[in-house]
């Protein structure tokens, strides 16, 4: 269980003002994980994560509870920042996921079977299209609800559910292949 997922997502009345500090505390790691999955570059993900929070801080007065949750709003900002970074680089950065630590952890704690499963999952994620991988990241890494997913992607809630189900199905097939 990661630290971020262990923290309950704060719910607030629609009219309540944005509590930026609380949003930061509960979303920092999730935003980083999501941005890193898009960029596949830890260094760039750090920069973009910091940039996303700074943008959110400077635009915090523009947040309107009627247009979605604070997390959905924050991940929309993070998504734009990450895509701007992709546009700027115009290339796919290699994944820098500190493989040495992962291998060491696997060897020490989980054994060969778990290591194999993770390799399968990682390979399945790699085979996914970028949009499906983004959906998986928003759902599995950030824990967004379907409503928040729809807000981030700019689609309807039912459409977001359909897209998410397709992405999960593709991942299941990729992992079982």
């Amino acid at each position: 269980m990661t630290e971020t997922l262990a923290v309950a997502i704060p719910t607030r009345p629609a009219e309540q003002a944005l509590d930026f500090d609380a949003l930061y505390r509960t979303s920092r790691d999730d935003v980083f994980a999501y941005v890193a999955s898009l960029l596949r570059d830890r260094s760039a993900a750090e920069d973009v994560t910091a940039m996303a929070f700074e943008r959110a801080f400077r635009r915090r007065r523009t947040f309107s509870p009627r247009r979605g949750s604070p997390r959905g709003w924050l991940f929309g900002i993070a998504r734009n920042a990450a895509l701007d970074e992709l546009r700027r680089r115009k290339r796919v950065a290699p994944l820098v996921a500190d493989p040495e630590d992962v291998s060491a952890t696997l060897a020490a704690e989980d054994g060969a079977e778990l290591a194999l499963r993770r390799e399968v999952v990682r390979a399945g994620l790699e085979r996914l299209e970028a949009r499906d991988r983004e959906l998986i990241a928003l759902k599995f890494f950030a824990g967004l609800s379907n409503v928040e997913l729809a807000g981030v992607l700019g689609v309807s809630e039912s459409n977001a559910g359909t897209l998410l189900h397709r992405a999960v199905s593709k991942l299941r097939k990729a992992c079982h292949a």
Partner: protein
Amino acid sequence: MHDDTLTPEARRELAAVDAALAGDRVDPDLVDIERLVLAVRDERERPSGPFCERLDARVAERFARPRPAGVARALGLVAAARARTSRRMLLPALGAAASLLLVVVVATSLLTGGGEDTLTKDEPAGLSAPATGGAVQERQAAPGSADDEAGNSTTVAPPGVAVPPSTGADTLPGRQDRRVERAATVALTTAANRIEDVADDVIGVTDDVGGIVVTSSVNSGERGGSASFQLRVPTGRLDEALEKLSKLAHVRSRTQNADDITGTFVSAEDRLAASRAERRGLLRQLAAADTTNETASVRARLRLVQQEIAAQQAELRRLRERTSFSVVNVTIDSDSRSGTGGGWTPRDAWNDAVRILEVIAGVVLVSLAVLLPLGLLAGLAVFGGRIARRRQREQALDAT
């Protein structure tokens, strides 16, 4: 196009995903989804400790950016000013200042009487002019013009006045002593309670310049009044009279006419000279007449010629009077802005307020007419820019 309709099985699987993410148990047949969720979640990247510390620090200092000392000081002063004056106080103050400035500008333009004065300087197109000869309208006759030298019944046109040639027999190019009939109209405005005083002054000016008041009409009352005069003043002192009349009250308009009647005058002189020559010839015939019948015939002819000469002399006198005296029409009207006491009354204030609101409404309307299309174009540009940027971002995602 996506099919947004989820099957019950798909809903069940998505519910299993949510349950696994929340740490709840899932149905046994969907346990592979639970394992997948846990495995994928274990793949998530975690930020490094140093990065978290740096970002925590930046958040703690509210993403402050280092600035040069001068800029920081200026921003500090601005922040202090903003702290002293909140936005809620500043906006009404700015609005009040802008409104006050607008009111001052509009009121100044109104109270200085720009609009009507502009009209008064124009020469009315319908000014009556004698039928003979060509009519010339002029704004003001130059003081000390040739009229001042004309002490007799002859008026010479001022050098600066272009007198158009008459048509037909009246055209006498090269003649220096032009016969010009002049007329003027002066429209004055004053406070309603000063109508009678100004009317008395008009009569006084007429006397001063040796003129006569042909007709006069004065109508005064508390709510306003008017007066009109027809004056005849010596043409040689017309400019002096107009100058004095113009000082009696506010001049709303002032026009002068010059009508060249030289041709008519010369024709009358020629006819008189011819008649006199004929009379002299008839007198010689009368002296040489031998018979009674011849004498009677010449005497009869002489009587006719004598009548013609008398009529022609009367015509010449009329023409000389037209050129030696000028007709001046003077009108005096009460000025609505001056009210009854010349002060600024509540009624004036109300009228000015309405006028100012009309001007403001006009300014707003014109501004909207300009700004709305520009705003629409700007909005379309922003909207198009957002769509283009969103599309470029999505393309960047597809390219990965």
